[in-house]
């Protein structure tokens, strides 16, 4: 049940973080590598969108409304909610054996052959049916999100805080500098969005309403 509650709490946080993050990016849709970066310097890449600041040369001749104030407030509040939810999920996951039992690939699943067998099932678009356990691809994806992308998101985000960096300077230095951290924060967001798109596509493939019902009510679960 805790997995379901924390899942939906995370969905709400992620939506808030994504919307506000996009709003903040709009105020400077240019990305750099290294410690510093501004409109006087060459960007690594530029998003082809208008900006909410007239000082950014986008070539659009149109300045979007500034939404950074509430976006920044909400971004950090949602980040706190996500981190606290993640802590509850993480502690409960270790405590209940959810990680070990459900997410860690079993012995037989470590081979390429086993991965390929699952992938082939997807490629042939065979009906998934009422699976009781995650297959190895699901396990790998969930592990990557929970222990890879989520911590990376928090790390690269905190590295953008000048106060945090004053206390923990190596957090930003090992990423290659402040602007590198910002660019990585953007890339990790991209990876999470790709995960969500694939995840939702798979839910639809498996039968959207039955899966939604299972994830909301817990019906179809083996045990609480």
């Amino acid at each position, binding site marked *: 049940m805790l997995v379901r509650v924390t899942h939906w709490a995370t969905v709400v946080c992620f939506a808030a973080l994504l919307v506000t993050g996009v709003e903040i990016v709009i105020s400077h849709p240019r990305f750099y590598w290294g410690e510093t970066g501004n409109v006087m310097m060459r960007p690594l890449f530029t998003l082809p969108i208008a900006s909410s600041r007239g000082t950014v040369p986008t070539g659009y001749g149109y300045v979007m409304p500034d939404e950074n104030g509430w976006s920044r*407030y909400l971004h950090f*509040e949602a980040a706190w909610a996500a981190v606290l939810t993640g802590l509850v999920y993480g502690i409960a996951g270790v405590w209940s054996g959810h990680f070990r039992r459900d997410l860690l690939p079993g012995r037989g699943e470590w081979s390429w052959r086993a991965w390929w067998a699952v992938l082939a099932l997807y490629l042939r678009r065979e009906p998934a049916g009422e699976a009781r356990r995650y297959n190895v691809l699901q396990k790998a994806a969930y592990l990557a999100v929970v222990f890879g992308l989520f911590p990376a998101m928090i790390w690269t985000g905190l590295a953008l805080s*000048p106060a945090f960096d004053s206390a923990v300077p190596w957090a930003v230095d090992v990423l290659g500098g402040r602007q590198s951290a910002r660019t990585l924060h953007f890339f990790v967001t991209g990876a999470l969005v790709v995960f969500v798109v694939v995840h939702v596509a798979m839910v639809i493939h498996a039968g959207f309403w039955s899966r939604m019902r299972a994830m909301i009510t817990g019906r179809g679960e083996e045990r609480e």
Partner: protein
Amino acid sequence: MKRISRRKLIGSGLAATAGVAGLAAAGKLAERYGLVPPDCGGVFGPGETLTYGVQRVLTAHSLAREFPRSMISAAPFANATDAPGAAFDGLRAGGFADWRLQVDGLVERPGTYSLADLKGMGRRSQITEIACEEGWSYIAEWIGTPLTAVLQAAGMKAEARYVAYFSIDKGWWDSMDMGDALHPQTLLAWGMNDGELPVGFGGPLRMRVPRQLGYKSIKYIARVTATDSMKGFGKGLGSASPEGGYAWYAGM
């Protein structure tokens, strides 16, 4: 539906009561140790208070990162500001010889200081990064008088909890807590990259708060006042920023 046992009900009730009491006690303690920002109300209050409180504890003795001279940005970028007004233009014509910083509030010796007075009160230079909340940044050498030296000269009283600072440009004012006001890197900057501080970058006098984002580093400083509460300033939210929708604390 599972049946709820009496023991479970009583247990949960006790836990909830303890939780609420704990939160209330934590709130009181946080208030006492200055871990609650002036803009702690509203829907964003809990998140903002968490950010400020945790970062204040974490950064109690931390110094902003300083960089080697070779990393100074060749092309720094200054946000264009509207002309600060006719009074500013007059002072500029006189080479800012008549620029005055007024120091008042909870101090033993309120007074006004010229730029030359300030330069005689102490000098510190540091190469730090200034980062805008929008995402861009540059590194520069900032030269100025530590704010703490000015507060000491004026004899700041023990009950002061915030230092508010005002631009000659009426709409711009802000404040910081004692953690930043007494911080060795918080400067009343009058120099940049071994020269005078250019007007575009806030000259003749800019507050440099290097552990916070750029919008905390207000340009054209004309007044500094020590206070025990931000209630009497503007809407009481600590600075002009929350009135425009932006957080008072800009460490994140």
